[in-house]
């Protein structure tokens, strides 16, 4: 390569290095992607609110406080699992935040070598809630925790460096995070939808009222994390229940 080529190459490399110093690297890149997703979600929500598709006059709205969800999630902890070769993960505490259209779950715990428990690092696992469901039979609202990122806070070790642990954790990868999330039982929000409203039989004078029921159909319309609450929007409709054999009426009060 001649002198001019070498100079051009050096110039380009220097430019890249300078740009790299000013740019944020992979961590900033991940945050930017998350912020982009969040902004898209919010724009979609705003459009849905403006067109009366979200929080509309059709939906029964449940607002569940983030503290209650945190306490419920905390009940499922600690969870322990051996993931990746020789890595023991124990998650102990949970934090939950519902802001700007995003449900954020932060689990704190420790990762250590299964073969050498004295070598450990405090970790923070970031994720969110997803797969919301209204149980077909019990009518209970439930969700799963999805984990998408691990961060090392402090490493205590026999010469173990933070970068090494981080590298190791990156090796854990998405499949391992998914299997770790699977260890967390479904988050059961203790709100239940009765599918049937039973009205007992009754008799008073010449009048007799048969036992009857109303059936409710409950469908999950949308889940929105906003203002410290998880807003669960439901489509609820009622219809007369199936005909029942006449029950023995009870005397009126």
């Amino acid at each position: 390569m001649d002198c001019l080529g070498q100079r051009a190459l050096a110039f380009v490399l220097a430019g890249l290095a300078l740009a790299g110093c000013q740019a944020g690297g992979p961590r900033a890149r991940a945050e930017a992607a998350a912020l982009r997703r969040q902004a898209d979600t919010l724009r979609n929500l705003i459009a849905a609110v403006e067109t009366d598709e979200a929080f509309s006059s059709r939906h029964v709205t449940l607002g569940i406080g983030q503290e209650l969800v945190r306490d419920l999630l905390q009940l499922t902890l600690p969870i322990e699992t051996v993931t990746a070769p020789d890595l023991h993960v124990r998650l102990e505490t949970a934090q939950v935040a519902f802001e700007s259209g995003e449900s954020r779950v932060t689990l704190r715990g420790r990762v250590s070598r299964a073969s050498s428990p004295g070598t450990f690092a405090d970790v923070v696992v970031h994720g969110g809630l997803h797969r919301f469901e209204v149980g077909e039979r019990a009518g209970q609202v439930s969700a799963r925790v999805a984990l998408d990122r691990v961060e090392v806070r402090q490493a205590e070790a026999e010469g173990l460096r933070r970068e090494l642990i981080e590298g190791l954790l990156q090796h854990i990868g998405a499949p391992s995070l998914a299997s770790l999330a699977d260890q967390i039982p479904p988050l059961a929000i203790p709100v239940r939808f009765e599918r049937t409203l039973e009205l007992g039989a009754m008799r008073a004078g010449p009048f007799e009222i048969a036992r009857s029921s109303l059936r409710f159909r409950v469908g999950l319309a949308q889940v929105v994390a906003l203002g410290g609450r998880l807003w669960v929007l439901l489509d609820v409709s009622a219809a007369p229940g199936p005909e029942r054999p006449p029950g023995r009426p009870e005397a009126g009060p």
Partner: protein
Amino acid sequence: MRRWVRAAFAAAVLLAGGFAYARFWWGPGPEALERQRREVQRLGEWLERRLRERARLHDSAGDSVLVGVPAGVAERLAGEAVTGLASGIRLTLRDLRFRKSDELRARLLLGRRSVGRFVLSVHVHEVRAVLRPGKPRLRFGNDRVGVTLPVAVEDGSGRARLRFKWDGRGMAGAVCGDVSVTREVTATVPRRSHTLQGVLRLSVDESALVGQPEFGDVELQVPIEPSAEAWRFVDELIARRSALCRAALAKADVKQKIRGLLARGVRVTLPGRLLERPIRLPVELERSLATPGRKVRVEVVPSDVILTPARLWYGMKVELRNAAEPPL
């Protein structure tokens, strides 16, 4: 030539390096990230403001769970529940007795004279009817829903014994003689509408929104209409008599007498307490939770029902406790 190959190789390396950098390493700088954060915050605030304006979101910081039922949905559910309350009310009336007797006078050759005396008695053994609710009208206000519910008494049928006794006097007595006939007939209950007025008092009982219906007693008029078979019987009764007798019985207008006697029907009181079965709305909190290795009690303290123009809200403070701990 070799110089060009080297330059092309260097350019390819640079291109690949630049691509890898942009694809895997480059991230936005602090200022760009801050711009994105501010944009997300702005959109979030905008959304919350719009929700408070449009959807009238109610928030109570102390309540762990808020339930908002849109006015339209609450109206529909309350309407269906109230209709459900009053549907299938069966009315059974037994052993009803009606009697009418009168002397019949008619203008004869020698002036207006008594032609006979009749006694008409109807013994209704049993009559059954059903109350069918119509579309309720609801008025929401504070912690109650005013209810106006039309109901119709219909699908009624029954059995009755009809007895007609004619004691002829003078010329009519001579041509007709005495008539005493009894016949088992069927009867129907003509449809008649009534209006029930009441309220649905709303409260949060433990963890469910409960509507407690309150209705006063309502007096219902239940008319009874003899069936076509009964009218045929009367027609045959008259047709079998002589012409003079038929004229006398025509004066008596037996059919109209029967109709008039039964049309008033009976008055029955529908007790309001029959409709006062509490309606629990279907959203409720579980009182216990089972998680791996422990059982948790869910303590619930309900707060008030709040009615905004758009939604009916109620909230609950929830605390999770070990099932072994004593309750609050």
